[in-house]
């Protein structure tokens, strides 16, 4: 049997996050192809209580140590390295998320292993793991091989179905003590999301704006359309970073995940970080000047054109239709 595949379970505020189940599903498929067992590392003081949810795994290693609660990447990586040594794990899967960012790189450095980032698909080929990685804002894919079948793989959120990582079985759990160094980065407090005037996660219609909106004044054009549609405006990171819309309107990796009936993506290229937040929308309409923008690969309807020309016309037409 091949060396175990180890998944780092991700948790936030006492809950196992979706990416964990997505990784378990991906790991289960890889493990079957490689003839390897699937293990999970669950760290921190709440680990023991959460282990029962990870029934897809062949074994859950619980490291019940409060120093691993919201521990910095370096501390988590050192614990994982110790666990790899103890369990002979060859491949480690972890989340390409803000929560886990940096752990993979640190682990790769500590273990002298290669890391594949932004992984969207993975397969076993002649004993080696080949990952498909999404680069340059989703414009290019790259198939990369982990030499010697060993390495760290950072799994992109939403790339693998979470259902494949859930079942109602109880996994074998083993507690393990690992040396944990005192972290030089210490958690102080959570800062809750700013309560905005509008909760964009509850809107039926969202008018999302990206770089293509060009100026703060133009955001007003999107606002007018949102108003006649009875919805709200929101934005991708560059627009929020410019301060053109408040933080409570940010959609994507660091911001909100939304699922409106209609999402209008105006001047948004569709980089993976933004796509992550809008993929569950029922209908996505994209307007962009670049016909090759990745947003058109996922949207239902598209217009290749200038959003600034289209917006006022569209607002008037909607008004007219509503009567």
């Amino acid at each position: 049997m091949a060396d175990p595949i180890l998944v780092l379970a991700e948790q936030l505020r006492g809950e196992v996050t979706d990416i964990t189940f997505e990784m378990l599903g991906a790991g289960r498929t890889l493990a079957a192809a490689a003839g390897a067992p699937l293990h999970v590392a669950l760290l921190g003081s709440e680990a023991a209580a959460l282990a029962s949810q990870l029934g897809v795994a062949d074994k859950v290693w619980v490291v019940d140590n409060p120093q691993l609660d919201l521990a910095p990447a370096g501390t988590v990586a050192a614990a994982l390295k110790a666990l790899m040594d103890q369990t002979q794990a060859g491949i480690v899967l972890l989340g390409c998320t803000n929560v886990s960012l940096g752990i993979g790189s640190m682990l790769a450095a500590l273990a002298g292993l290669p890391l594949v980032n932004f992984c969207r698909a993975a397969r076993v080929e002649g004993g080696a793991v080949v990952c498909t990685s999404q680069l340059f804002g989703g414009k290019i894919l790259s198939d990369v091989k982990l030499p010697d079948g060993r390495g760290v793989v950072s799994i992109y959120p939403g790339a693998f179905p979470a259902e494949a990582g859930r079942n109602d079985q109880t996994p074998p759990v083993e507690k393990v003590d690992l040396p944990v160094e005192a972290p030089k980065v210490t958690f102080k407090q959570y800062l809750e999301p700013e309560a905005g005037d509008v909760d964009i996660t509850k809107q039926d219609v969202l008018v999302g704006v990206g770089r293509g909106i060009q100026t703060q004044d133009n955001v007003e054009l999107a606002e007018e359309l949102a108003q006649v549609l009875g919805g709200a405006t929101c934005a991708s990171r560059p627009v929020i970073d410019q301060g053109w819309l408040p933080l409570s309107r940010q959609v994507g990796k660091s911001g909100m995940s939304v699922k409106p009936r209609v999402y209008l993506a105006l001047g948004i290229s569709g980089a993976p970080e933004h796509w992550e937040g809008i993929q569950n929308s029922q209908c996505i309409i994209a307007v962009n000047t670049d016909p090759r923008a990745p947003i058109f690969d996922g949207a239902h309807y598209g217009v290749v054109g200038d959003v600034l020309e289209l917006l006022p016309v569209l607002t008037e037409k909607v008004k007219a239709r509503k009567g």
Partner: protein
Amino acid sequence: MNLYVLLKMVPDTVEELDVSADGKSLDAEFLRFKLNDPDEHALEQALLLKEKHGGKVTVVTLDAPEVDDVLFTALAKGADRAVKLPVDQAGLGTTAIAKVIAEFFASHAGEITADTLLLPGSQAIDDLEGEVAPLLAAALQLPYLGVVCQVTVTEGKATVTKEFAGGLRAEFEVTLPAVLGIQSAERPPRYVPVAKVRAAMKSAPIETVDSTPPDRPLQLEIERMYKPEAAGRAELFEGAPEEVADKLVDVLAKSGVI
């Protein structure tokens, strides 16, 4: 404070990206480069910290197309020193890049003092092998935090805000010296007029510090690079804004939102 900003050039994705004939890299011929977005924020955060606490901002980069312009722009914005490590970034994975930068910090030219912060961008669109920030922190054995959007420094410690998801953030305390991967600065990156950049070109030199090219450019084996197949390509509407708007209104009506 002793502030280092690590700058990385990345292909500008506004331009069309093509795969080269070997099928394993980007076609360099028509590639245009720009500064990695989070790195621009890292520079802004460094300038804000300098304004508040005094000190010196040093920008450090490997060699890449159009990088001199970026270095002069940084100087014009208020950086005190620009360092180019004469190793061509092309074809290097992040592990190799971090190695070159770590060598600089092991030398006298990149002295790390008790009040030092190393500020790379949190991540880059071509970080196939991982991010520079944690790799550098591992090499230099410094504390690290990524996805940072706020930094306050008091008495040898930094209070740092990291972004999670859904608008949730958290505050951490970090002992200096440290590496902080910056996602966004507390303010939008400042604008600098071209005249000031030209003046910097004339008055401020770019320093070159000897570096060893890494013996292993990539840790991974790239089998192929390709453009994604448009799986569920959008139904495209064409025509003048009037015609297109009519079709979009139909879609909106069909979706039941108007």
